């Protein structure tokens, strides 16, 4: 078995084509001049221009952004503090196992189960607090719940790889607890926190299932909007919107790659 056997190369190229053909089709038909059908009628950017006068799409984009920013900020703080709490204190083996299990739950269970559990919980909470109507608040809570786990796992692995020598040296030089945290631990941890936050942000933008279950009529996000629209039938405008979302994703991914590879 040669690793650059022509058969392997051919299969690999075909597989890449399989991954990208649908996405390319979306991009191509987003600049197609006809509204109906998939026959090429010439190049146009009309569908992109029309996007920016579509009130519903602009609201959905705004909701997506608010949801992602708010949930990421809260989840990053909670996750970072949690990671420090788990890694830097002498917990018994049993406590550690329990904490670890809870932390891995949102990572391993299918998201539809978390979504179902949240629907039921919010439904019961609504009996007492009317604030838990389906809507942005519920979505933010849902997103934070899975983001916290991912942030904590990323930050914790950074804490483990940092080791404790620097912190111990700071203690030996009479650093107080808060000084140690502010001037030693957090600065060393910053790349991990940024990576965790970016992961959380992308997870939020990418999420469909949790949002679908917890959203209300006024809190439609872009993935929800696209889902509802394509069930009625695909239009070039949806292709244009999807292409823009795809471009944002590519920029985010390439940006994160650049940032993490320099280290």
């Amino acid at each position, binding site marked *: *078995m040669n*690793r650059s056997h022509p*058969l392997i190369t051919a*299969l*690999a190229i075909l597989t890449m084509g*399989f*991954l*990208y053909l*649908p*996405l390319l*089709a*979306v991009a191509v038909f987003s600049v197609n001049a006809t509204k109906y059908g*998939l026959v090429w009628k010439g190049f146009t950017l009309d569908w992109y221009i029309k996007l920016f006068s579509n009130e519903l799409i602009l609201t959905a984009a705004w909701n997506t952004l608010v949801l992602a920013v708010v949930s990421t900020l809260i989840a990053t703080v909670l*996750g970072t503090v*949690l990671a420090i*709490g788990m890694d830097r*204190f*002498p*917990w018994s083996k049993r406590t550690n196992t329990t*904490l670890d299990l*809870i932390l891995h*739950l949102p990572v*391993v269970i*299918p*998201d*539809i*189960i*978390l979504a*179902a*559990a*949240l*629907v*039921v*919980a919010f*439904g019961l909470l609504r009996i007492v607090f009317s604030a838990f109507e389906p809507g942005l608040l519920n979505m933010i*809570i*849902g997103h*934070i*719940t899975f983001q916290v*786990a*991912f942030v904590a796992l990323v930050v914790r692995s950074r804490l483990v790889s940092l080791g*404790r020598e620097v912190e*111990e040296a700071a*203690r030996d030089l009479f650093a107080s*607890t808060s000084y140690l945290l502010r001037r030693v631990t957090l600065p060393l941890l910053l790349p991990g926190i940024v990576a965790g936050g970016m992961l959380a942000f*992308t997870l939020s*933008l*990418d999420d*469909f*299932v949790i949002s679908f279950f917890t959203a209300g009529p006024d809190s439609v996000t*872009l*993935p929800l909007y*696209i*889902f509802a629209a*394509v069930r009625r039938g*695909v239009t070039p405008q949806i292709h244009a919107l999807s292409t823009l*979302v795809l471009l944002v994703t590519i920029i985010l*991914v390439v940006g994160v*790659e650049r940032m993490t*590879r320099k280290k």
Partner: protein
Amino acid sequence: MSKLLVWYGELTTSRNLSKRGLMFLSPGMLWLLIFLVLPGLVLILVSFAGRGAYGELVWEFNLENYKRLTGFGIFGWTSDYLMIVWRSVWVAFVTTALSVALSYPLCFFIAGRPERTRYLWLTLVIIPFWTNMVIRTYAWFLILAPELPFAKLAAFLDFIPAGSPLYPNAFAVYLGMVSMFLPFVTLPLYSSVERLDWELVEAAQDLYASRVRVFMQAILPQTLPGLSVGVILTFVPAMGMFVVPDLLGGAKYMLVGNLIQQQFGASRDWAFGAAISMGLMVLTMFSLYLYRRRSKGVDFV
């Protein structure tokens, strides 16, 4: 009472230390307890409740939902729901197997590129990984549209009536699922393939091992850590997948995810939805258990 101790350069008592530790743990852990563990427990409770005439929950302990899930209804035993559960497991299995089969050549190919283009290829696999799944799923509508050659070919071969798209059906679900989960296998697998010791492979070839044996005995054991992460990252979410079967399978190819969504949406039967979720949870736990037994010491993240 509390003993004095030195903890990484700090002179403190164990009570002080655990008090501070709790301060760090509690915000995040409380959040997870309130919005993850507690809802999970409530879901278990609800799965034993009933449904009122208007879709409200009736708090009366019964096993009706589980009986319904396993097929015991008022009209005798039917296999409808069990079929959907079984189909989900099967689809997840086939999706995983196909993704693995396609990932090996792709990983070998990327690992064989010169260093400068290797990251470009890798980034090309990472981009779909992070692209929204609704977009990646509906994109198949275009490829499978009646105007394009694929649907025309299928119509010519009499699989579908002329002029109709190549969805919704089982084939479209498999297409969508494999393209959705392929990067989930490729990325972890690549981290193992990159570190592969090719001298072992060459040694096996020098000793006249057949291609199958070279793969089974020289490549597979070396790539097992990455492969098993990829398999679990694909199999578990694939069982609960709901976007792909909803858009590409329609009513013709329902999976557990659709069944759950139906109970929380149109049917408004939360208790039954909770029971199906529990069924999916049991399947998830069982696959994780198998995974842990087969590959000790492999980490997810």
